[in-house]
């Protein structure tokens, strides 16, 4: 077990190093030049050169990459000359909103997916199974910003049930619901098929034979065990979830990392784009690590040889 955790740990570090290197190299291709941002359009070439030297932009690429690693190790994601703030502080400021929305969105996905998945499995091939499966496929087929905008217009504006965007507790409902409606389909499928698998197992048959109420069999014996793949997928899904949040936050002016990224794209802000991508990618890798370790403790079926 310890060995497994250690291996995962080392592996996480390698992955994060790769993420840092890739984002750095890709962003390096952006001709947006901090020296130009600082000096303005009328600067002479000499001035630009001296600013570049002061910022270390004249050093060879590999050296800069190494220096950048050092910087990141010290918790410094660089200074953003466009926004005139340190990149990390902007990210940390926006992070809570994104985490808040992400948690709410996952909750929404599960709230939608669990009843549908269970019913679909229990009454498989019935009309209810067909309808819910198709409905969830339609859900996954719709762009999240499309769903979000319509929810905003109908539930937020015309019905007046929810705030029109912005950061607040009731304001999280609509963006979370948009992500939930478009993301729940996957969980419906996983849950349905894993329920079906569990149903075939012997102990379920035994439970039934003992005369346990069907409700108890379904929820206590089947559902619980069928949840394992759902939890696994949750961990894998984080990166996808984050992508959806980028778009959703924009629709609802939700002040998280996604909105920040949108502004960074619009402002030609290389430093911020690099910082955001790196930070969120690393965060996801770390989260995956945590999920795996927790999982290793919880699920005795996995062997860690």
């Amino acid at each position, binding site marked *: 077990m310890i060995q497994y955790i250690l291996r995962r740990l080392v592996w996480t570090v390698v992955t994060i190093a790769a993420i840092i290197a890739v984002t750095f190299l890709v962003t390096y*291709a*952006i*001709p*947006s030049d901090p020296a*130009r*941002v*600082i*000096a*303005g*359009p*009328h*600067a*002479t070439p000499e*001035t630009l050169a*001296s*600013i570049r030297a*002061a*910022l270390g932009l004249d050093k060879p690429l590999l050296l800069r990459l190494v220096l950048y690693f050092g910087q990141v190790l010290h918790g410094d994601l660089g*200074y953003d000359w*466009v*926004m*005139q703030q340190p990149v990390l502080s*902007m990210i940390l*400021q*926006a992070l809570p909103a994104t985490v808040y929305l992400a948690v709410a969105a996952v909750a929404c996905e599960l709230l939608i997916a669990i009843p549908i998945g269970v019913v679909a499995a229990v009454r498989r091939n019935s009309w209810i199974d067909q309808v819910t499966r198709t409905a969830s496929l339609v859900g996954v087929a719709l762009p999240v910003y499309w769903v979000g*905008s319509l929810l*905003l*217009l109908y539930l*937020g*504006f015309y019905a*007046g049930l929810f705030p*029109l*965007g*912005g*950061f607040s507790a009731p304001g999280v409902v609509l963006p979370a619901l948009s992500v939930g409606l478009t993301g729940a389909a996957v969980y419906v499928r996983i849950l349905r098929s894993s329920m079906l698998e569990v149903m075939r197992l012997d102990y379920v048959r035994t439970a039934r034979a003992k005369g346990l109420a069907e409700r108890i069999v379904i929820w206590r014996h089947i559902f619980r065990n069928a949840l394992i793949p759902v939890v696994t997928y949750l961990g894998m899904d984080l990166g996808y979830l984050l992508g959806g949040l980028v778009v959703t936050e*924009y*629709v*609802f*002016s939700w*002040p998280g990392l996604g*909105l*920040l990224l949108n*502004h*960074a*794209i*619009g*402002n*030609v*802000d*290389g430093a911020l*784009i690099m910082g955001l991508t790196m930070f969120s990618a690393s965060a996801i890798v770390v989260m995956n690590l945590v999920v795996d370790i927790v999982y290793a403790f919880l699920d005795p079926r996995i062997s860690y040889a």
Partner: protein
Amino acid sequence: MRTKLRWATTLSTGLVALSLVLSSCGGQPAAKTGGNGTTTTQPQGGPTITTAFTSNIETLDPAKWTDMTSMYPMEMIYDTLVTYDPAQGSKIVPDVATWDVTPDGLKYTFHIKPGIKFSNGDPLDAYAVKYSLDRVTSKSPIGGGGAPYGFAYSAIQGYKEWNSSGQKASPDGKGGLAGVKVIDPQTLEIDLSTPQAFFLNTLALMSAAIVDPKVAEQYGKDFSTHAVGSGPFKLDSWQQGLQMTLVPNPNYWGPNKPKVAKLVLKENVSDTLQLLQFRQGELDFVGGPLTTAEYAQVLSDPKLKNDYFKVGGNIIYYLAFNTTKPPFNNPLVRQAVNYAIDKQQIIQNITNGRGQVMSQPLPPGIPGYDPSLQPYPYDPAKAKQLLQQAGVKLPLKVTMIYPSNTQDHIRTAQMVQQQLQQIGIDVSLQGISQVGTYWPTEDDPTKPWEIAWTDWFQDYPDAQDFLYNLLSKDAFNSTNVGNWTDPTFEQLVTKADSLPASQQEQRVQLFQQAEKIAHDQASWVFLYYGWYDALIQPWLRPDPHDPAGLGVYLHPVSTPRFNMMSVQK
């Protein structure tokens, strides 16, 4: 000033100062706050005005200021020496000071009204004014590369020496700009090295906002988040990127004290959301220019129609030609394009009628506009004939750049592409918003394009702001996007710029002659004149004594004066 494209917002003349930036961005001593500027006021009763922006409020520091969004709070927090008359937008009137000027236009004496205090109780005197001007013109006011708008004051004596000295402004009135002298605490003298007819206009810009020297010294480059001025409101709280709250300044000296308890400025709210929020009453004021999508709703909703205000402001929308290379170094080809574009259709489809076909660089409200000049009519046949006359081989392939961050810009570009296709010009579109492309006009003197969509929001109502900033040689590769030039035009504008305000009539004549040249030479494709508009809730209408609605706005960039709005709630 160019909105949306933040790197284009600087004026042209001077330069933006350069210095080594890093030296000062390190150790900022953690200043101990001693109750300074943090007097907590009980919010008085009364309603709250809420407004929102699509972007961040970038700064409250005049030495960092470049953008329009930041002007909304800054106009409310700070005073300037002079300002614009609320009733007649373009007229300069005293703000904290009255003034005398010598007939040669070289020496200004400002008499600061007595008893004016900053919101924290510090006195506003000539020392504070000098400090503020020294700070914004010094090379290293806050540890950045100099204030973006510092060069607007380059006509003041000793500007060059002070700017290149790299020293920081001092609150005791010593050093700094040689031409700015404290005579006594209520009297300030400013000497210019050359007459500048629009000098007072530059003193009404937010870069000339008067800051509290004590607080500015205390917080250095973090002054933005601790801003203290003497305007009708003061900063209460600011969650950067989310929202800023202003409350009335208890020490405000002016006649128009705020009639509300709070002013809330929400940041980063999309256009679509802003309009929904306004319709639901969450927002009280939606500033413009409104997007076409927003205006389309105004047109189809009678209630909104009632809340819609068209308020002055001078905006021009035009296409710049790259005149440094064929084919657009040939005036005939430029004229042909002017004939080939149906401006009326663009106004109808892109702005839903909120525009006037443009005939010349200056908008009608600016002295120097020549009413006898007619717009190029839409005449594709004439356009084809001119192309033939110029010997252009068709189809002509050109690249057009435009900011692709709003649907209205994208649609304009697509429409131009369609119309030019009719006369045999193939336009390939290149939207500029993705990372990796600076606005090539600013950044790349090689200009890998032929046509650029661009706009200009006036900084102050003087022809110089248009003709010099957009078409002079000094502004090459910068705000003169296409490097258009003409020797006679250059001469006329330079001459007009060197005349003092007392010779305004002669200036107007010179500008009109220059206008004719730009028109005849087809310096740009003249698209249309636009204006600011806004949505205002019924309870918060402009001053009833000012039915035109101009009172809400502070020329020249039309940010609202929330303190002057009448309140019925």
